[in-house]
């Protein structure tokens, strides 16, 4: 993202990558795998086996990502769109991130008291959230290899 209208993008990009990494880590940490496979035994990684802690970190990551997405969207619509346009890979990322966000929102709603979803819908959002993340990670790896960004000059 070499947007001259957006000098803080370097910091935001770093924060975005770090948060996505932490979200992925804590998301997979919701499955009981890190203790089983000794990853939580590595000094400094014991917290990965703490389900409540990884859950809180995942929620905090979602809060930060929501704020970053909203900030960047405002910047794009107010200024960026006049001189830049979204690339094809950007649309792919946006679609996948929207799917992850939507299923994540339903997952959070399900966890609230007095909120009961049907068993099938519950399982659908649980599994689809994870599947969308895996597709997103695959797509992100491909885009990283291809060195494709989010924006290109008009």
């Amino acid at each position, binding site marked *: 993202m070499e947007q001259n209208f957006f000098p803080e993008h370097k910091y935001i990009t770093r924060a975005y990558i770090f948060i996505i990494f932490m979200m992925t880590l804590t998301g997979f940490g*919701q499955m009981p795998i890190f203790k089983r496979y000794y990853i939580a035994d590595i000094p400094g990684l014991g917290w990965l086996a703490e389900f409540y802690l990884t859950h809180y970190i995942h929620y905090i990551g979602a809060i930060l990502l929501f704020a970053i997405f909203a900030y960047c969207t405002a910047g794009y619509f107010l200024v960026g769109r006049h001189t830049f346009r979204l690339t094809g890979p950007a649309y792919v990322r946006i679609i996948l991130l929207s799917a992850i966000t939507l299923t994540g929102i339903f997952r959070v709603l399900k966890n609230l008291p*007095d909120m009961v979803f049907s068993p099938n819908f519950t399982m659908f959002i649980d599994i689809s959230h994870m599947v969308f993340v895996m597709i997103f990670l695959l797509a992100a790896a491909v885009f990283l290899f291809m060195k494709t960004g989010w924006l290109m000059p008009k």
Partner: protein
Amino acid sequence: MQKLSRRSFLKAGLAAAGTLGTSGLALPASVRGADTNELATLIDIRKCVGCEACVDACQEVNAHKFPEPEKPFPKMYPSRVKVADWSEKRDVRDRLTPYTWVFIQNATVTVNGEEQELSFPRRCMHCQNPPCADLCPWGAARKLENGITRIHSDICLGGQKCKAVCPWKIPERQTGVGLYLDILPSLAGNGVMFKCDRCYNRIEKGELPACIGACPEDVQTIGPREEIIKQARMIAKEIGGYIYGETENGGTNTIYVSPVPFETLNKAIEKGPGRPHFDGVEDAMAHADNLAKAMIIAPLAGVAAGVGRFYKAAKNLDASRGKEGKR
């Protein structure tokens, strides 16, 4: 609160004669057809005589749900993953197991200066906001609208996360059964988690849960939660007693009333694996619920920051475009 139909009465009579068990006891009239109401059970500790009729009834009525593991078990990798096999110890009745979903806990306490032996059934608390169901990564543990928390044995992989996050460590694992056998039996999963499902299938048919119907002392009552809470408070006021479950873990659908403080009971009971405590329990999901509220504010804050940051640049851009247009 419990009303028996003629059929139920006859069957209950036969059960007392030791022939039919608890098969037809009907739910209270206030509960029948109220699928969307959260139902709670009240356990009046004063009444329990520790006869274990509830344990027998639970095991008889739920026998078809119990695990029948395939042996030998798949070799587990890595080696730290231990099998949990209760199939040869089905007669264990002094703790929770995959085959004992309710058991009788005993406590010797002093009531009004007199030493007393108290006994009471222990099983899943059926939390109002159950961490086991909230944090299950597969959706195998679920809360139903009628307040039951149920683990679906066809979906559960036996990762035991529900037990790790349960404030009372209720669910118990049986290796050698379930979906994991069809996926990666050596590398992922380790069986199925089992616990009380409050006889969800009987409640669906308008029948009492087995442990409630079988109790000769009417220790347990089932009804809409608000009515159960009222009843618990009334009894507690009457006897100068104590309530457990009304606020523990944010509120549960298993409410105990005791003539002695639960701190006292907690000290007197045998605790450990399969033997839940009576400690005070904070709402395990409260922090997550607060963070969920922050998720609503975050995008609004992001938009506000973005507009504040870019509004002036957007105005300047519009002005310069306007000038260009005039030229």
